[in-house]
């Protein structure tokens, strides 16, 4: 339960209502072609931005172009942008917070500047809460609480049922098969860098697979597409071999960097597959167009293949070419499933409850939006559901 306290700050932010805006300044155009010019602090930013909007007066001659000018701290009007009269909107960025800025528009007819329209002022300020993300913050906080609750539930020894995932059950068989055949195991962690959550999940699974290869004494090949992924993979595999008590079997050079180029990497990995003929191939992480090139080559060398990705466009290719495929969330469940640690399994239960919540929201949303066509109050429920799930 102590860990749940860390989530409380998130809840506090939901209670903090919007930081004061920099004020809204507006003028009528007077004799100018601009009907009204408005300047206000740009919303939901870290400061330094002012939104300018204007409307063109009906029945007036439009200028060929117009220049937006800003009154600087050193006391002169400086042009900041040339605008089309009908564009209606411009955001000035890179300003100092809590300083007043004035703007005016100078129209140009036949290349000659006319009398500028009346100036407006605004003060850029930073905001402490993103108003377009409050609903998501509340939803995410609740989901986090549910996940932490089930992690604690798992720690206390509560019974948690996790359905069988064929692809993960086959991991041990795949490594065992490679050992029996005297051929290596290949692990491909996708083509993205360590700032991608799928690569992070893949690295965690690599640790589990490396423990199996260390136990069975099978060589493990990890060709990587990014230098950072290579460094992380080397550390993870080394730790796994240490944990199993086989540091002598760890071979640093078998976890190597190929290239950052997508198809260069595919060519390199295909070459390793054809030459080394691994008996088991794991493809877990983020994949793009190279997915089928890798999976079909792996199939052609007779390897048992376990793939997993959260990229919807690549899942059909893996299903067609691999023996087992982890679809979307199963990739993220793999580490918990393989470790069988109660606290990790608890997080899977929390994840499922969160998914149930979204299923209910979707069904309710469809129903209320449909019923709302005939019965007004239902629309309000639909709008509320839209608010809590919308992200700007």
């Amino acid at each position: 339960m102590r860990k749940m306290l860390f989530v409380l700050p998130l809840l506090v932010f939901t209670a903090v209502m919007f930081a004061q805006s920099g004020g809204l300044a507006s003028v009528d155009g007077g004799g100018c072609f601009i009907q009204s010019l408005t300047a206000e602090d740009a919303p939901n930013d870290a400061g330094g931005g002012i939104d300018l909007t204007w409307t063109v007066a009906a029945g007036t001659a439009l200028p060929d172009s117009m220049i937006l000018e800003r009154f600087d701290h050193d006391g002169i009007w400086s042009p900041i942008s040339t605008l089309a009269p009908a564009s209606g909107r411009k955001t000035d960025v890179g300003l100092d917070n809590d300083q007043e800025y004035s703007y005016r528009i100078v129209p140009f007819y036949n290349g000659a500047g006319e009398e500028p329209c009346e100036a407006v002022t605004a003060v850029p300020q930073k905001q402490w809460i993103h108003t377009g993300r409050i609903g998501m913050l509340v939803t995410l906080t609740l989901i986090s609480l549910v996940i932490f609750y089930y992690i604690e539930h798992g720690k206390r020894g509560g019974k948690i049922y996790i359905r069988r995932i064929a692809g993960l059950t086959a991991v041990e068989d795949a490594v065992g098969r490679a050992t029996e055949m005297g051929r290596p195991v290949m692990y491909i962690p996708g083509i993205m860098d360590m700032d991608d959550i799928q690569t992070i999940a893949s690295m965690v699974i690599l640790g589990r697979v490396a423990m199996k290869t260390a136990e069975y004494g099978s060589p493990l090949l990890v060709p990587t597409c990014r230098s950072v992924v290579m460094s992380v993979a080397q550390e993870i595999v080394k730790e796994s071999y240490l944990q199993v008590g086989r540091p002598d079997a760890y071979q640093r050079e078998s976890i190597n960097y190929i290239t950052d180029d997508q198809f260069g990497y595919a060519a390199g990995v295909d070459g390793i597959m054809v030459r080394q003929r691994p008996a088991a191939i794991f493809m877990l992480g983020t994949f793009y167009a190279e997915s089928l090139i890798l999976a079909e080559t792996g199939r052609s060398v007779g390897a048992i293949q376990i793939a997993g990705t959260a990229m919807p466009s690549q899942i059909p290719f893996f299903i067609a070419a691999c023996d087992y495929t982890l679809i979307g969330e199963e990739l993220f469940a793999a580490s918990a499933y393989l470790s069988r640690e109660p606290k990790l399994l608890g997080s899977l239960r929390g994840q499922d409850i969160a998914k149930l919540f979204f299923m209910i929201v979707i069904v309710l949303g469809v129903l209320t939006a449909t019923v709302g066509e005939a019965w007004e109050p239902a629309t309000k429920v639909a709008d509320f559901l839209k608010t809590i799930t919308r992200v700007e």
Partner: protein
Amino acid sequence: MRLAIPLMITFVAGMIMILQFFVPATQPMGDSLQEWYMIVASAAIFLGAVNLIQVHTHKIRFKLKNWKYSPVTLIGFAVMIITGLVFGIEADLPFDYLFQQMVAPMAATMFSLLAFFVASAAFRAFRASNWRATLLLISAFVVMLGRVPIGSMIWNKIPLISEWIMQYPNMAGQRAVMIGAAMGMVATSLRMIFGVERSYLGGAD
């Protein structure tokens, strides 16, 4: 301490990235972290290059299996680096010429292999071995037919049916995968940020 410091760094960095999404005032902190990551990644490129050279020189020195490919890799690597450093990487210079005339066609060749792999994978996937595979075969056939002119020549409703399959059953399936994956991402991130998952540090328990 071996576990505590990495866990603390993960927690602080993770919380900053969450906060900067919901609290605009903290965005500069998030931007700084991302710049730090770029610096670390840039430094790690040298590690990658060193690893590449080590692996291939080792193969050449001990005449390991298939060592004859390694000089090709090392020569290509050296030529690209030298031309880039000496002449620069702008258009119409030797580096750009090598990239446009060698690297790009080789990448295109690999990409074009997809056409053949798609055909062989489709052949296996579309075998009508059970009712689900038959359903897949029929829907794939309709979608493909709806995307070529002959489809509408056979029956003008085929492109509409094709579009309906793509926009409704297909889209629903893709969104279901994405929602499930998003939940997995949230759970994985929380496990890492709060130190529940620590196997990657070598401390599973």
